């Protein structure tokens, strides 16, 4: 096993899959010669040529639309959106086209595309280099949404995403691109979509989260263990759509107290659905309210003093867990 950063794991997965499967192509802004502004595609154009690693014009609608057209003609395109904040121009192509192609054709066409994008805040990117966009697509039937939180998951899940017969949105937390390092199995190693993972077992409280929330959550859990003697289980959803209902049920049944947490703002976030499901389906197991924590319902400002006031942090997670433990 090699040690890789998150972005290296992404690149490695792309390389592996392009080597293995000729129909895999990569397209996006600056992905070729430049290797991507985060270097996720570094070296791929040199290796696979400009026909398979395509520098597109500055036009996200068409990045998605081209991927869809190529997918309907036998390719497995992996489109990169330079920042998740710039996926919105492609919203129609993703939501009205990619998500509906299989259904509207009565199952005769598929749309096996992956749309990758760096997302998330905490890098002083301001309103337009900080967004979490997963919740905007979450309501749309026909889309899968994956957010790996470790380099190993990133590699394994990206391979699964590329091989998936349906459109997958694959969001990579940009703040974790280089900070995170971890052992990554090489070769044929896949992590299935739709499977959550307990990143830290615990018995008293459940923290259900994903993405950067896993790290804040693990830190908070350790503090609670140390300072309060409270044992927190941290469940990393990994795939948001489809949700791993069994894993959610298992942790709730185990602890009966749950905090759903994400970096993204609270209202209408992924946490709303997770919490609503628990409240409806696992009501009988609950020893307290299903609590939620997310960023303030605000855009994300640039100045550090402002950004910090919007985003959750370990301290706010600890406080929420303590409120929950008090029930």
């Amino acid at each position, binding site marked *: 096993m090699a040690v890789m950063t998150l972005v290296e794991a992404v690149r490695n997965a792309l390389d592996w899959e392009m080597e293995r499967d000729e129909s895999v192509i990569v397209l996006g802004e600056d992905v070729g010669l430049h290797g991507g502004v985060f270097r996720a595609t570094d070296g791929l154009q040199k290796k696979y040529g400009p026909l398979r690693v395509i520098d597109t014009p500055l036009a996200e609608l068409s990045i998605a*639309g081209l991927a869809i*057209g190529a997918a309907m003609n036998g390719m497995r395109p992996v489109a990169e959106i330079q920042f998740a904040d710039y996926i919105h121009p492609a919203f129609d192509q993703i939501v009205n*086209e990619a998500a509906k192609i299989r*259904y509207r054709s*009565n*199952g005769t066409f598929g749309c096996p595309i992956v749309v990758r994008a760096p997302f998330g805040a905490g890098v002083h990117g301001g309103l337009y280099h900080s967004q979490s966009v997963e919740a905007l697509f979450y309501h749309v039937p026909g889309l899968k949404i994956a957010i790996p939180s470790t380099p190993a998951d990133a590699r394994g899940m990206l391979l699964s995403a590329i091989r998936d017969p349906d459109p997958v949105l694959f969001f990579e937390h940009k703040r974790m691109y280089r900070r995170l390092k971890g052992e990554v199995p090489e070769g044929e190693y896949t992590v299935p979509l739709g499977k959550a993972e307990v990143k830290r077992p615990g018995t008293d409280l459940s923290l259900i989260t994903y993405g950067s929330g896993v790290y804040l959550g693990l830190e908070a859990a350790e503090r609670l263990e140390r300072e309060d003697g409270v044992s927190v289980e941290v469940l990393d959803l990994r795939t948001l759509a489809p949700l791993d209902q069994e894993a959610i049920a298992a942790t709730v049944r185990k602890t009966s107290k749950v905090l759903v947490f994400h970096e993204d703002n609270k209202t209408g976030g992924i946490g709303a659905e997770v919490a609503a499901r628990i409240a409806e389906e696992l009501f009988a197991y609950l020893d307290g309210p299903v609590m939620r924590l997310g960023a303030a319902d605000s855009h994300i400002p640039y100045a550090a003093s402002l950004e910090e006031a919007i985003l959750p942090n370990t301290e706010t997670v600890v406080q929420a867990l303590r409120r929950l433990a008090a029930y």
Partner: protein
Amino acid sequence: MTTEGTALIRAQHQPEHERLGLSADQVLRMYRTMVLARRLDERQWILNRQGKQAFVISCQGHEASGVGSASALQPGLDLMCPYYRSLPAVLVFGSTARDVLLEGLSRAEGPWTGGRQMPAHFGDVRYHILTSGSPVATQIVHAAGAALAAKIRGDGAVAIAYFGEGATSKGDFHEGLNFAAIHRLPAIFFCENNGYAISTPLGKQMAVPNVADRGPAYGMPGVVVDGNDLLAVYRVTRQAAERARRGEGPTLIEAKVYRLTPHSSDDDDRRYRAPSEVEEARKAEPLIRMRRYLEEQSLLDERQEAAIQESVAAEIEAALAYAEQAPLPAPTEARRHVFQEAA
């Protein structure tokens, strides 16, 4: 007189279809497809009035542009991204009267959507007709993507996108054409300019007289063609396909046509255009025009015309009989195919 001179004179007198290398049989088949499209279209309006088909959107006036262009391509190899007026084109690629009516009556067996979409939402994987939805212009980018795939594989296929002039106003048109031109993709962007987008006239859609004027702005030829003239449409499309297959890149073709019906069965076109304008347009309509050509070339007489009409009518009635008895989609089907089902 030199042999060359004789050849020249013969060429000048040679009927247009021969000059294009089309046999009498081939043009007659193209004409029959136009007739089939028209009669199928008319039949659906009747079904609509009978309360059997909730919605109709027509190809009437678009028969020469659809049949002429699709006939210049290679079904089975080339790819089509149709829009809702592409009935004549999809018939050329392999779709049948039965397919049309199964979908018109939203039967389970409908090969395009199985009753999941409104009528005229073409798309048949067997014939390389990519599935289409209702959003205008999105398929233009798909055609570029399909052409990109063809170019990467080097399989020699050409992708054609059909769309109206209203569709050219959307960013999809701009981004699709721009990409195709940069990468010299084997694509044809075929605009059927019928002068209206529902009620919106051309002058409110763009400040230039021709959609084709935009081709050069992307670095591709822009060709205007009389969309009522089957053979003219065939000619320019074949040229575009040859160019595409030579690796020289895409072409924007604008066929000037007229929409002979309201926008759809939900529309009342008297709110925005004079009935006299429609009547005027009927005089130049593509079926009459082609019939006259065939008569002039002595390829068609009244008897033969009647035979075509009869065989088309019989084909439609047989298809309709089949479609009417075919079962509606079962409610249990409704939730399938959101994702691929486990094998």
